[in-house]
């Protein structure tokens, strides 16, 4: 990679200040996305600001009907958090499916969301669970957060500090692994909130990234069961087509993974 300057931030304010001082800065959390990109010389930040040791940004809190995951919490710590496993088991399970064990010790929810890879897992959970992304400047609703391929609503220098999830009545995640990258070729998160509303989010199927699936939401709202989706046909229009999966195959996977997620949710 190109030469850069590394800074370790001790607090959120410190991080924002360090970022502003650099001429072309990037935040570094787990580095499991940023560092490979820098190694390929596709990114050349003059400064990298390390958020991973900021105490206020690490931890999982379950309080009543809300789960709050601090942004620099690793996937491993999310997956193994016993309180989260009780409150939203699907979310803990999702974190345990990201990457591989070594990646999970370093990668973070904040990093995953800020990057918005079209095949990342967390965006599906945030969208389906109707979560709120908290930054050092504001709160952003999940529906307003994801703006397309590697693009989010975050402003330059804005730092995700935490993500809060309402505890659902039912939730499940099913992921079909891309044979090479092991990202989601298609992953579907289904959730029914305590009022009975159903939200379904698919990742990996579209080059714009995570998407809601209205036809599946309607079917599940009427009948929360895998068989309710048997007759559904998802359109291949606008879906990704590449050597690993044609658009119609991804459309099929959206349905099949939704069914398996519903079965997982119970």
């Amino acid at each position: 990679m190109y030469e850069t300057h590394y800074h370790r931030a001790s607090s959120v304010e410190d991080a924002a200040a360090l970022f502003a001082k650099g001429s072309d800065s990037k935040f570094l959390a787990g580095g499991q996305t940023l560092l490979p990109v820098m190694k390929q010389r596709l990114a050349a930040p003059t400064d990298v600001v390390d958020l991973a040791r900021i105490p206020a940004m690490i931890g999982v809190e379950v309080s009543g009907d809300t789960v709050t995951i601090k942004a620099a919490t690793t996937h491993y710590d999310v997956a193994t958090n016993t309180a989260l496993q009780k409150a939203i088991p699907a979310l803990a399970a999702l974190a345990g499916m990201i990457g591989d064990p070594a990646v999970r010790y370093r990668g973070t929810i904040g990093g995953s969301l800020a990057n918005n890879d079209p095949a990342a897992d967390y965006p599906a959970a945030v969208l389906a669970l109707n979560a709120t992304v908290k930054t050092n400047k504001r709160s952003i609703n999940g529906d307003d957060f994801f703006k397309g391929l590697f693009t989010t609503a975050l402003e330059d220098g804005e730092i995700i500090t935490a993500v809060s999830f309402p505890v659902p009545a039912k939730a499940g995640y099913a992921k079909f692994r891309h044979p090479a990258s092991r990202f989601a070729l298609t992953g579907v998160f289904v959730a029914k909130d305590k009022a009975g509303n159903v939200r379904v989010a698919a990742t990996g199927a579209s080059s714009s990234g995570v998407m809601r699936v209205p036809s599946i939401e309607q079917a599940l709202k009427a009948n929360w069961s895998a068989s309710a989706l048997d007759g559904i046909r998802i359109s291949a229009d606008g879906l990704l087509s590449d050597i690993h999966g044609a658009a119609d195959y991804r459309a099929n996977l959206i349905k099949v993974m939704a069914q398996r997620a519903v079965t997982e949710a119970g």
Partner: protein
Amino acid sequence: MGVEGIGASVVRKEDKRFITGKGRYVDDIKLQGMTHAQFVRSPHAHAKVKGIDSSAALKMPGVVAVLTGQQIVDDKVGNLICGWAVSSKDGTPMKMGAWPAMAPETVRFVGQAVAVVIAETKNQAKDAAEAVVVDYEELPAVANIRAAIAPGAAQLHPEAPGNVVYDWAIGDEAAVKDAFSKAANVVTLELTNNRLVPNAMEPRAAIAEYNDAEEHFTLYTTSQNPHVARLVLSAFYNIAPEHKLRVIAPDVGGGFGSKIFIYPEEMVALWASKKVNRPVKWTGDRTEAFLTDAHGRDHVSKAELAFDKDNKILGLRVKTHANFGAYMSLFSSSVPTYLYATLLSGQYNIPAIYAEVMGVYTNSSPVDAYRGAGRPEASFLIERLMETSARQLKVDPAELRRKNFITVFPHQTPVIMAYDTGDFNASLDAALKTVDYAGFPARQAKAKSEGKLRGIGFSCYIEACGIAPSKAVGSLGAGVGLWESAEVRVNPVGTIEILTGSHSHGQGHETTFAQLISERLGVPISQVQIVHGDTDKVQFGMGTYGSRSLAVGGSAIIKAMEKVEAKAKKIAAHQLEASEDDIVIENGEFKVTGTDKSIALPMVALAAYTAHNLPDGMEPGLKESAFYDPSNFTFPAGTYICEIEVDPGTGKTSFVNFVAADDFGRLINPMIVEGQVHGGLTQGIGQALLEGAVYDDSGQLVTASFMDYAMPRADDVPTYKLQHTTTLCPGNPLGVKGCGEAGAIGASAAVINAITNAIGNNKLEMPATPDRVWHAIHGQA
């Protein structure tokens, strides 16, 4: 069998350094004053190089030199060679274009080098390489066989009109025509053998050092055959005369064929080390491995089998197009001809065979031998064809094979190969039993009731290994002989060194070769040191590939041992005042049979080296050398049966069982043999389900990292069930056949046969990804 002799599953001596992180791979080596090389590579598949501007790069920190393809030509460094002359049907020699180490005028594949930056650190070399400005004039590219042979296609090399290197054939066209005219049934199959990237886990690397006082080069290289590297670098690339070039292949992290060839990078490193008069190190990254390591396979074929009314095969006709990539690599010409078509008879008694192979240039990475080299392509073809035939003729696939098995040996096939021995029924029977073939219909029905599609598939493979009898391959166009050498040195106080021309890059020779000595002399393997991989230490050898190390390398060791034992017995007899004929060797002692008179090996050695009391006329010392030239190929063979389940919702294939019954002749170390089979099967399964090097129409390699090229992981493959049947190889003193490539040769057909059985659709190409299988079940959109 002694505790550490032939047949013992001894743990490996070499493991100690690998498990403690003390292996010595090329990139681990640091020399004083070492510089680092970074190549400037073409982003275009086909382009003219109009000019190279190094001025900005030269000003950057740490840059020692920027060298170009034109400079290599000016210094009269030779072009890369192809070492096997294959002619077309009409007798014309193969049509080859020139391959310079760095392109002075024309680049012909993405990743081909045009210049190299030499700098103090790797990062500085990378930074400066980006500052080298190359003026390319893009040319139209032909990225695949179909595009390359189309009328009006862009031509890669003026020497090869129509991009055809050769149009070769083997067998009897008239006999096959006759057989087909009499056939009761004909089965036709079109199939592709997908292009693969070998991807040994260690990327290629080279360090070159020039001693200007001695005018002597040393090269550390990731090579499977350091002596061949030295020969080629010297005699063809004009780097230096052989006696002024030392090549060392230290620990090498896997090869699978890709590290046989002598690549541009090591040539350039050597040439550059003299130009800058400092050591030059190049370590490839994984992307460079994808772009510049020799790829494997890439055939498109049409095959037809003719049967009589009793379902016995009358004839086989094959037409294959083989992709060579942009340049002819070292052994490339032999892979789709003499290593492929000569195995098309499979395990079957086929009276007439005719195969045509057209070798084609395309704007893609050069293609050469990769684990199996031609035999996976042949085995896949004949075994898919046999399974397809069983389905079309409505007979059991095991029984159709059995009906056509060769049962009398030696068996001369119509395609040069004469199989020495084998028992194909024995391996088929063993595999059928282990997989519980009789119980399959019930298992399939149960799976169906649970919504899964279960299938079973066969592959009865045979291969030609122990490459190879020199005279035979010479008559077929090989530029080299394929014998092997060994030197046995008994040291003055009795330890033994075996200097072998073979090279271990995972095969465990430091243990298995020592076991040969332990078996013969009764000494522990800790007393025996295997020396390999250094042209200064070991006499010329041909290296390791083609499952040859024990069959050929081991036999050379045996021959040298026989000479050592004969001399040692003479010395012992003289010392013990007995007849030579009464001396036997047991537990490291030379004994007079029927008495308690003995002399230990260390004392015999001491006697040899002090020479105080040797038989009249005997030279001092106890060291002998041998060159062993095999009389025939060896023919490992066996049956693989694969049972799988397809999830119809996703098209994903899971393994229920994978059974292998192999006949490798004598097993020296069964644990190591099984490890070779596991690894080969996993590569064969990788080809069938996961792997495929894909080019887009402009010649860009779309699968140029592990993100897009699916390497088998632990959860992609099952725990294998291995067994062995044995017919000893009559052709070499050890009775061994070789085992390194079998898995990669036989596995793919078993997997594809099983999946097509499960889904009831015989049209399925490799890799049978979930996407492809799902479409084969549900149809294209």
